[in-house]
């Protein structure tokens, strides 16, 4: 029973998803569906809270899943992200009539899968959770059924399938080499491994990195992002840009720092991550500069931000036990990135609802038409650039400090110069909104739900920029699971 107790937060989301589908089938009234979804998310988060209060930690289902501080961090994060997206999607979902229930249900399943991914302790579990969350995302991406959305969905599906296959191949190799699928077991086998098997382990690690690279949106697996971000319905883009990436990094940290942490191959994949990080940042930022469509721009900016995450991952060097600073840095970055990106993307959703356009040029003069929307978007963009007094500023400083500690100075130099590139296109949006001529004299109204979500996100960015300590402490507790 304790195992079901620990698995309950995920289970609650899945049950709610089921209820939503039933509700959608039998009841004609659709307006209560988002609130039912939010209720499910709230119950799930509350259950996680009670698990924390009862100090319940441990394995679930024979170590397939692990409920530790790391998992709890994400058990709080993913429902929060899903909640914000749902609040932002209410107006959008109204247009979906007969498929509203599915929409909300899919969002819940994505969250559930992501939570499972964060607590996965076994290769097979990782695969199951990954597929759960990914397939739901493919469906969400193609939800609108118009040309762009369908193309986005299919592209996501095909590329996702290929990367999952790559991942599976790597996992198979790892199983073959170690004889077990449990992450701790793999770690142990790695320490006892014959150094002649190094190439085999490296191959396995590289394939796994490639498979996860798709989820993390890093170079050279980032091709899908701009197209999918542009084609998917905007609330889904918001969800993808945060939840999918967070899930990707959650599992990468687990796999690489628990399973593949032995000194046999660490130097290689650390170096690999460093190089990928440097290229991702640069490619993402350079390509984002010329984008005219804001969703596409966020697709490329996602690639660049993934590069920053990866700088943090690189810094979590195993050689010296001192570097859990970097691990908590990555987690802090994930949390602040969630707030920041959600704030920005929800603002974009609201703007799109009002003016019906995704072109940056149509954002001209937005500051006059809706000072509130423009301010939230501008503030979140400033956080993405990494300027104070935002949470994004601190996250960057923290990660760069960790990278300096790990003696990756060249990487930090590339990273800070990328801030410069990023400033160009983020500030451009701010410029268009504040300096441009308003395209129409009318003001813009945003729904109460989405305004609430945006406020919470923007406030989070501000508060954690001024008082980051609570979140840093939480990230630190979560990162302590990585004992070297």
């Amino acid at each position: 029973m304790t195992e079901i107790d620990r698995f309950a937060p995920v289970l609650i989301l899945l049950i709610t998803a089921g209820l939503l589908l039933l509700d959608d089938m039998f009841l004609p009234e659709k307006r209560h569906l988002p609130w039912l979804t939010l209720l499910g998310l709230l119950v799930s988060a509350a259950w996680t809270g009670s698990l924390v209060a009862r100090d319940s930690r441990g394995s679930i289902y024979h170590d397939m899943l692990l409920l530790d501080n790391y998992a709890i961090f994400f058990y709080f994060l993913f429902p929060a992200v899903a909640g914000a997206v749902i609040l932002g999607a209410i107006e959008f979902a109204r247009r979906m009539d007969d498929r509203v229930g599915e929409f909300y249900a899919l969002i819940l399943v994505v969250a559930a899968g992501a939570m499972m991914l964060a607590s996965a302790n076994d290769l097979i579990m990782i695969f199951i959770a990954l597929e759960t969350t990914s397939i739901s995302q493919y469906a969400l991406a193609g939800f609108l059924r118009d040309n762009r959305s369908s193309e986005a969905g299919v592209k996501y599906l095909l590329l996702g399938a290929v990367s999952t296959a790559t991942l599976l191949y790597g996992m198979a190799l790892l199983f073959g080499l170690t004889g077990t699928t449990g992450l701790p077991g793999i770690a142990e086998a790695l320490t006892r491994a014959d150094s002649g098997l190094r190439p085999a382990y490296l191959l396995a690690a590289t394939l796994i990195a490639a498979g996860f690279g798709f989820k993390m949106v890093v170079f050279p697996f980032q091709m899908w992002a701009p197209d999918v971000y542009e084609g998917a319905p905007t609330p889904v883009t918001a969800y993808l840009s945060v939840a999918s990436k967070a899930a990707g990094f959650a599992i990468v940290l687990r796999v690489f720092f628990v399973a593949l942490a032995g000194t046999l191959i660490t130097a290689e994949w650390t170096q690999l991550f460093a190089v990928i990080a440097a290229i991702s940042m640069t490619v993402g930022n350079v390509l984002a500069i010329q984008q005219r469509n804001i969703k596409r721009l966020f697709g490329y900016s996602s690639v660049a931000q993934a590069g920053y995450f990866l700088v943090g991952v690189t810094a979590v060097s195993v050689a010296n036990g001192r570097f859990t600073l970097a691990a908590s840095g990555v987690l802090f970055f994930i949390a602040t990135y969630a707030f920041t990106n959600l704030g920005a993307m929800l603002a974009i959703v609201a703007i799109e609802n009002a003016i019906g356009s995704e072109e940056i040029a149509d954002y001209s003069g937005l500051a006059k038409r809706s000072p509130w929307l423009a301010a939230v978007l501008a503030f979140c963009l400033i956080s993405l650039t990494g300027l104070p007094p935002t949470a994004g500023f601190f996250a960057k400083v923290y990660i760069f400090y960790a990278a300096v500690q790990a003696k990756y100075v060249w990487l930090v130099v590339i990273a800070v110069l990328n801030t410069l590139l990023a400033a160009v296109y983020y500030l451009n949006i701010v410029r268009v909104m504040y300096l441009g001529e308003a395209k129409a004299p009318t003001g813009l109204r945003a729904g109460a739900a989405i305004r609430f979500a945006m406020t919470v996100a923007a406030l989070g960015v501000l508060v954690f920029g001024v008082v980051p300590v609570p979140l840093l402490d939480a990230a630190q507790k979560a990162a302590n699971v990585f004992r070297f």
Partner: protein
Amino acid sequence: MVTTILFLPLIGALVIFLLGDERLQLPKYVATAFSFATFVLSVILFVIFDRGRQGFQWIDHFTWIHLTIAGTTFEVQYKVGVDGLSLPLVLLTTGLTFLSVLISYEIDTRTREYFLWLLVLETGVIGVFTALDFILFFLFWEVELVPMYLLISIWGTGRKEYAALKFVLFTVAGSSLMLVGILILGFTAGTFDIVTLTSMKITSSIVPLWLIFWLILAAFFVKLPVVPLHTWLPDAHTNAPTAVSVLLAGVLLKMGGYGILRLAIDILPDTAKDFGTLFAILAAIGIIYGALIVLRQRDLKRLIAYSSVSHMGFVLLGIAALGQVGMTGAATEMFAHGIITGMLFIMVGLIYERTHTREIAQMSGLMRQLPFIGVFFYIAGFASLGLPSLASFVAEVLVFLGSFDKYVPMTVLGVVGVLLSAAYLLWMLQRVLWGPPMERWQGLKDATAWWERVPVVALTLAILAVGIYPRWLVDVFQMGITPIASRLA
């Protein structure tokens, strides 16, 4: 006390934000009140500052972020304070901001946002001068980006968006590299506390010390600016609105000089000694190049902008000598240049308000229509070229005395720079103010509003105060420079 001075403008900005009504002219009165209050507080601080005690005083301090993870500590403190070097610069900031607010009364579009960003900018700059924790310093350094970008690009003239973006990109490039240097330094020394960093001897690090030195200097060399990183300055100064030009030239450039003195040289004095000659060469280039370029300018504001490049060369020359006299001279030049160039930009702004042109060729004989502006323009011009009894003379004498020992050729070039500055300033004044009067300027009105006259007269008094009896200023600077010079010995 320092925290109050630091955050009062920000509170003022918040008040302006909450009182949304533009029609009652509230923003400008709120801004005036808050900036004046801040100025008064800083004057009080300047007076009660203990001139007998070395080191930092009036320190406000609490630990902001403290993380200990597996043996390493990451700590950022909120620590602000003043010493002999930073206090006059704080005074300069608050004074010039107050006068800028007065000069900005002529802004009539989006006044609420304008004054809001002006006050936020003031907090950022005071923060830079008073921060005693390196990460906090960096935070305040970055705070000035967004307000400057908006102030230049919304209320500027000409190619304002281009100038604003150029300003931001150059600054971010420099400060990004500085961040790397800060992080490496903090990791090597185990702390970000500036007081601790200046008193400890740093002998080695994970990268060569000179690399850290130049990474940190990157931001300051862009800001000062040092040729060839100066190309953002003419565009930014020329296209910004008057008050912003005043602040940019008067205060923001000094952030660069302050940074070089306090953060690069004071923390890595041994490394600094290796580069003294290079500094002197760059200074001489800046002085001469800046002055020569000025001679070709036809736009009044651009002329003064380039003269700023030249004058900041004097600052660098004083620093290059790495001695007590030279660095005190550099600091004094920063203050003097601040009030003088501030005044020059105000005069140009007043003229532009009336003639709506900055082309020197199109103006002539304005002294007849604008006697008040004309006379004070002359005073500012003479002050800028270093006439004795006016502020700049004191500073330049100290700089040359300090650098003559070590760098004779550069000092000679510096003096030639003074000669060139006389050339371009006198030429400019003669061309614009004297000569045959032109038809189109017949009906111009002189400066009569109180908010136009007060800044002009106030700055003139300040220039005279420094020029005639400089001890009230130079002694304070000396207090701050002495520890730095002793570390270099």
